[in-house]
Every structure is written in structure tokens, then in C-alpha cells.
């Protein structure tokens, strides 16, 4: 074995062993993201959906389901980084870190599975405006910010104000 390969092989081996050693240490609990108000899932008022299971919601947010039952395209609106709502949704619905979320959408576009990533919104007001304006859109806001302009979807049969609502 040449000297360079020999040295590099040892380095790689030590690196991998050290990393595996670190991996065997107890895993820190994933940070539990808590918001002061439950997160409401909101859709355009004309969207023919009233209730979704958490798994169905996850499938929509992952773009594994891209159309509503009436074949209208789903437009996903996601808050920009560094908002409590986004952190909550990444943690509870996507079950991903920020880096994994970014890589997921890059891969999804690169595989030609979606023509575009989620639309990014920068505030609750902007979310409400776009959900109102775009038929087929879906997004998330704090439940105490919901207005009559949008429809709140039940998750697992429950509204944000009800006990057992899964996104609180």
C-alpha cells in the first residue's frame, strides 16, 4: 500500500471510529418547540377539505400529495426561517432539522418530483393574505391570529381550541 493511501486510510478509520464513538453517547432529546398558542392549519375558504389526519397533513406538507381531491393543485406556504411557527412545524410535522428540511426540498426538486418548493411567507399577515388570494393554498399560523377570511382545518377531528388537538 502506498504511503499516502496508508496514512489517509488510517486517518479515515480513526475519524469514523471517533464519530461512531460519539454516536454511542446518549442522544440529546430533540428540542421540544412550544408556542404560546396552538398552530392552526388554514386553507383557502373554497378548498373542499374540513378535516385531515396528521399523517395526511404530513403527506401534503412533504408534497407526497400535491393535489386536493377535486384535482386543484395544492400551494404550500411556509414561514421563513427564524419564526416560532416554522420551528414548530419542522419539529412536529416534518420531524426534521432546518438543514434536513432544506436538503429535502432540494432533493425533491432535483428528482423532478415537484416543479417548485414551498412559497415562503414572512409574517402572519402575509400568510393570511396569500391563503385568501391563492385557491388551493394551505399554511399554518398561530390559532389566536386566525381571521374569518380563511378556513381552519380540523386535524384528527379536532380544532385548535379542543382538547387533544395534535398541534399544540
Amino acid at each position, binding site marked *: 500500500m502506498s504511503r499516502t493511501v496508508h496514512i*489517509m486510510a488510517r486517518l479515515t478509520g480513526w475519524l469514523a471510529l471517533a*464519530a461512531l464513538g460519539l454516536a454511542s453517547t446518549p442522544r440529546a432529546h430533540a428540542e421540544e418547540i412550544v408556542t404560546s398558542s396552538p398552530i392552526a392549519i388554514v386553507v383557502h375558504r373554497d378548498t373542499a377539505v374540513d378535516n385531515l389526519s396528521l399523517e395526511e397533513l404530513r*403527506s401534503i406538507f412533504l408534497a407526497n400529495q400535491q393535489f386536493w381531491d377535486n384535482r386543484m393543485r395544492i400551494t404550500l406556504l411556509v414561514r421563513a426561517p427564524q419564526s416560532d411557527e416554522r420551528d414548530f412545524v419542522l419539529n412536529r410535522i416534518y420531524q426534521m432539522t432546518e438543514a434536513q428540511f*432544506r436538503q429535502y426540498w*432540494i432533493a425533491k*426538486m432535483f*428528482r423532478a418530483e415537484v416543479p417548485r*418548493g414551498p412559497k415562503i411567507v414572512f409574517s402572519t399577515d402575509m400568510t393570511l393574505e396569500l391563503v385568501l388570494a391563492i385557491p388551493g393554498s394551505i399554511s399554518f399560523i398561530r390559532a389566536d391570529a386566525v381571521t374569518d377570511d380563511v378556513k381552519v382545518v380540523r386535524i384528527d377531528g379536532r380544532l385548535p381550541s379542543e382538547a387533544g388537538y395534535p398541534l399544540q
Partner: protein
Amino acid sequence: MNSTVIIRFLACLSCALAAQSAAAQGDNAHGGGAADAQQYHFLGFGDIGYLSRDGTDEDGFVIGQVVAHLVASMGESFSVFGEFSATARDTEYATEVERLIVKYDFSDRFKLSAGRYHTPIGYWNSAFHHGAWLQTSVSRPEMVRFGSEIVPIHFVGVLLEGNLPSGDLGLNYKAGFGNGRHANIARAGDAGDINGDKAWMLQLGARPRKYHAFDIGVGVYNDEIALPLTADVEETTVSAYAAWSREQPEVILEYLHSKHEAVGGGASGTTDGWYAQFAWRLSGKQRDWKPYARLEKTEIDASDPLLGGRGLDYDAGIVGARWDFNPFAALKAEYRREEFGNAGRENNFRLQLSFVLTQL
């Protein structure tokens, strides 16, 4: 028969475009602006590496592939995907249209497209494409490496894909029809099929809603390959894969079995290939690190009329670590112990800096 299928496809695409145009007009009539606008998204991938091989003085830096990926969505359902690469060769850069896909999404169940694809055989070939940054390891498994003769990496034709009504099981399918391998079996028939026999493929998969990081699937691929000096060969490949992409752990298992038979009787033989990759994203302060390992094996019958006698048997053990030091770039170090059918055993070390350019 073939021309009938093509005419039907073109008719279908025409209807889709007409419907798209009508939908766009409808959007305008209602004052909608977002849906009917063209939107473009660019992704760029690249990598720079260092390769050190046992028994040679040719150690050195390597410019890997530079890849541009463009997505254009035109309205709600019509989109174009293009992937273009430049690869360093000894005396030049080789440029290639890796994928060019024109796609119309009717619904989740029916998405029809035409163009040049990475053949949906197994997992890796249609999961990571030419994005070195996307894959955990430095390089692809040998049986699906670019330029491989084991698997037809590309095909040119039409593809129908979508979800199957299966509730939480998340079943999906891909059905393809098009030009198979060229006489140079590492290439697809880009400029036309070299014989009248089209390749076809079917892949069935599942992404259970409850375990959304889990992918499992089986597939079959069939083609008749025209070879310049010998009889045509019928190729049938069955494949199976399972992948768990949550990173703690990340597991990818893939197996394929190909049967090759000389048309009209005569030689026949089989090829078997598999790999198993395991990786683990560390937690806490070490979460930028992901160690990984992979085992690979490819076995080819000497009597195989397509692949026998080419020295493509392969055996390898790989260990490495990936460091995501930046949200858009990773440094990977990989040690490989490989045995090639035609070149014997080799140990080598690879270092790779890979990156992605994106607006996401």
C-alpha cells in the same frame, strides 16, 4: 404498434397543453396572477476532490462534475426539468444533457412526461442523480456509477407515474417506455433507437404515511439490445430496494438481478449486484458529522452474452465520514478497499468537497 403509442402520447400531451392554456386563461379572467406565470428555479452542484490510489504515483486533485439543474414551471401543471453536466476528462470537458424532462401533472395519480431520464431501476439511480452533495458518500455504488454497463443509467422515452389509491400505505408507480441501450451499452439511444424493440420498465413503490422516511420498492426492466458483432441480446432486470432516510440511521439497501439471453437461442447468463449502505447523523454539537460504511458486490456469469468477459465483477468495502461544515457544502473522506474483476485489488482514499447552489 410503436408509432401508435407515440401518436397516442403526442395526442395526450396536446390535450394537456390545450387544457393548460384554458386553465391559464381562466386564471387571468379571475385576476389570478401567480398560477399562470412562468417560474424558474436554478440548482447548481459541483465537487472538487483528491484521489490517492495504492500502487500508483498518480495521486492528485480532481475536478468532479459541474452540474446545472433548471426547473421551469409554466402554470399549475406543466413543467420542464433540465440537468446538464460538465465532466473533466484527460484532454477536455465532456458536456452532457443528463436529463431533459417535459412533464404534465394531471393529478397525484397521473403525471405524464417525455424526455431523457435516469432509468427508474432500484433506488440510487433516480434518487441522487448528479448531485454529489445530496448523497452521503463520495461516489455512487459501482453497479450504478455513471458510465456503468451493469445498469442502463439513462433511457429516452415517456414515463407515466403517480400515487396509487392505497391510503396510508402510500403506494406509487412508474411505468416507462422508450429507447433502450445504444450499441455502446453504457449509453442510451439519445438520437434514436438502434432497433425497433423498445425498452419498458415498471416500478412499484411504497412510502407509508406513518413512516415517511421509508421507501421500499420493486421493479422490472426489459429491452432487446442490438450489438454490432454478435446476436441481439434480450435483457430482463428485476430490482428491489429499501431506504430509510431519517439519518439516525440512514440505511439504503439495493439488489438487482439481470438475465441476458442471446435472441434466437444460444448463450445466456445472469448478473447479480447489491450494496448496503449504513450511516448515522450524530447528535448535539456533533450533528454536522455523519460517519458511514458501505459493502458492495457484483457477480457476472462468464457465459453472460452482454456483460460476461468484460471484467465487471466487483467487491468492495467502504468506510468514510461526512462533515457538513456549511448548510450548502460538505467535506467527505472515504477509504475504499476494492477488488475489480479485470484489475485486481486496490486500496484508495478519496477526499471530496461538494456543494450546492440554491435559492431555497
